């Protein structure tokens, strides 16, 4: 029943690059660098980023439920799976590849906030946004609510919440 055409006319084409297929592209400022991303009518920003080799952003549901694909788009934390790449022309995107604040990375490690790590980049993006945006000291409730859109199946969240609270406290004390 197999219809093997591996030696047919498609052989040798590299299916990964959407631009090879003449598909439309957009120019997006990713982590301060302008990149051309493939963007058909159905390409999500998540898939466009990953196709461009930025695989630090993961995706676990592609329905906006898990938060693992979180990036910052023009200053707003978004699920990149829910953003159509073609709407991103000329816009600015910050991904995990931009870098992680040393204090946050250190606190996540010390509090055991990482196990399988699949949720971690998205969690870092959400935590970074939360820490950067808060006016007063973060309460436990605010951290809980601020990270409630990011699923983690391994850790039970305790270490993640403790790490964010600790970083907020240390930053406020000028440490």
């Amino acid at each position, binding site marked *: 029943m*197999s219809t093997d055409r591996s030696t047919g006319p498609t052989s040798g084409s590299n299916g990964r690059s959407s631009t090879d297929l003449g598909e439309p592209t957009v120019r997006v400022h990713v982590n301060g660098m302008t990149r051309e991303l493939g963007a058909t009518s159905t390409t999500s920003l998540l898939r466009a980023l990953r196709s461009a080799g930025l695989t630090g952003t993961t995706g676990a549901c592609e329905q906006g439920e898990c938060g693992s694909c979180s990036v910052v788009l023009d200053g707003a934390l978004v699920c990149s799976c829910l953003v159509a790449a073609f709407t991103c022309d000329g816009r600015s995107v910050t991904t995990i590849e931009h870098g992680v604040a040393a204090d946050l990375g250190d606190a996540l490690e010390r509090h*055991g906030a990482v196990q399988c790590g699949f949720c971690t980049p998205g969690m870092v993006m959400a935590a970074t946004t939360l820490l950067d945006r808060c006016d007063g000291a973060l309460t436990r409730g605010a951290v809980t609510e601020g990270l409630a859109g990011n699923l983690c199946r391994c850790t039970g969240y305790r270490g*993640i919440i403790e790490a964010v609270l600790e970083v907020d406290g240390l930053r406020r004390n000028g440490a």
Partner: protein
Amino acid sequence: MRRVGTSVRRPDVAAKIDGSFVFSNDVTADDELYGATVRSPHAHARIIDLETSGLAADPEVVCVLSIEDVPGARLVGHIVADQPVFADGVARYHGEPVAFVVATTQEAAWAAADRLVVSYGPLPVLHDPERALDPASPRLRAGGNVVRRAHLRRGGDVSGAPVEVEATFHTARQDQAFLGVESALALPDADGGVTLRLATQDLHTDQHQIAAALDLPLDKVRLEMAGIGGAFGGREDITLQIHLALAATVTGRPVRTTYRRAESFLAHPKRHPARLHYRLGAELDGTLRYVYARILLDGGAYASTSMPVAGSAAYFAAGPYRVPAVDVEATSVCTNNPVSGAMRGFGAVQACFGMESAMDLLAAELGIDPVELRRRNVLAPGDAFPTSGQPVGDAAPLAELIDRCVELPLPQRADPDDPYALPGGTGNTSTAANVRRGVGFALGVKNHLYAEGMQEEATATVVVDATGVEVRSAASEVGQGVVSALAQIASDELGGQEVRVAGAHSDHGYAGSSSASRATFVSGGAVRDAAGEAARLLRARVAQRWSVPEAEVELRPTGVLVRGELLPLAIVIGEEPIAATATFLAPSTERGDEHGQGSVHVSWMFVAHRAVVDVDAQLGLVKVVQVATAQDVGIAVNPRAVRGQLDGGIAQGLGLAVMEHLQSVEGVVANATFTDYLVPTTADMAATEVALVERPDPAGPFGLKGVGEPPVLSSTPAIVAAIRAATGRALTRVPVRPEDIVGTS
């Protein structure tokens, strides 16, 4: 300083935080193709025709594979080979693979899979596990619908006690819901073999099944671990491995695929739904006289690990108690429901919910505090395990677990002005005046390692070369931190040297699965022995070359100390690396006799949980405020990683208690999304309090025990007991739904 016993930094953490860690869906190859699985929309149907000619004109489609294309064994399976690589004339569950479409882009492969016309002839769906036992029901497998009936009997009569309670409980189908969906890349090799870069709990069990289906010798099937985005039992069975390997050998090109979430829900085996009927008999002072239990497990369409799951459900059906008479039976049956198999806790989770719920009924009947009732009945060193008769030895610190757990601090009353603290959270649905608090307590027990006569072993190699020390093992890092544990163990044997752990590979020797709380135990034992041998060889070499007695050669973190001189490893090793391979054999177990009696387990892990909940009984909303636990961990190899296992397991136990239920309607899965299958978020998760009880296990390397599974055992019944205490409701089913609390169901 010894590293075992300290919270050293995990070697994989930095890359996981900065996003550079390579998960299995990050692996690519030049010139790769993409696969998409065609799945049965029916729970039970004949496959009349598979019409591929419609795809022939699609320039992006490379090939379509189905059962006719499988060159070797058509049936595979984790334990028994009963599951076809593709549906072979009949689809037996919703989502069963029927064909695999290979195309030049992933999107084209999915689109083509959607366009493939499969003609089905629907068959009667056997979706009720009770009916599977009915001789009049269709037989779904040769030999009948019973996959295993594990009947254990010990002691005398199981009737006539002065006090008796009887009830039936149910637990739902739970999905592992690991975040990293199934994904892998298969590469054709020049020798006609295939290399897979994948995420799996068990490289060698996969390797055997792939080789059988492709009719290849084992050494031509090479498996290389890519990063695993969680597992929890859901990566023990074959899903995409054979489809990809076959596609790569047929096309001669690399082929990869990544499942979508809905597909992932359909593809891997899940926790068995269970019906648990219990009858407990006791003296007036609460001393248990007997446990009678009948447990029915819905195994779904194929065997997977149903046989040992049934064994586990039966052996832990009487809990960690001294019970003179036991008659328990666990039966796993075949249905047209999703395949059930391994999930963290492995049958003992369901049994624990039944037994602990029954214990609470008994406590209420006797008017004895539930914690006190347990104190009066727990196993003590030297007792016989209730279901097997096996002596429990000294590593059974149950009284201490109870004490340590109940001593942990209780949470404050919820702040009535804090919306985060109330059931329903910031939905502002509850008012503090309607909220009632409840406290529940439960104990759990499970064995670590495989049981019932399976010899447990693992092999590892330690290589010392001029660049340092490397551990080579096939153990799966599923997130639990086994790479850290193995490095810690090797480092201690080698005088504190830095140790790196190579990526797991099927060439590294058998390690078995990261399951049954066994990986650190068995592979840790192998690494200890291999590293100890490498250290001995290293000392011997230095002693000979420098003409000193071996006793004067000391391994240090930065080199080798010889008569006061610290020699760097590069000088000592030169161009001649030292390699030592060791196989660790765990103590043997035996199959039980005709009544299941015997030394069937290596040893056990025990745990206590206390849960505090706030319930709005008018709205049926639950906030699990706190779960406190004391766990028997042997020794904590890495206390921070151990804490992570306890917290994370409690989250999954909480999920089963109040949220998680993969539902099916006549065999068709109804909620295969994270929108409808709810796993706990930060807002749902309880605070945790933890006490580690370290009582070295004589069976374990360094005295260690497994730690991964106990956190999911008694967290669920403790939470439900707390909801019962708050509401007065009987609550015989998990997850507890709002209507169970408000009383409309």
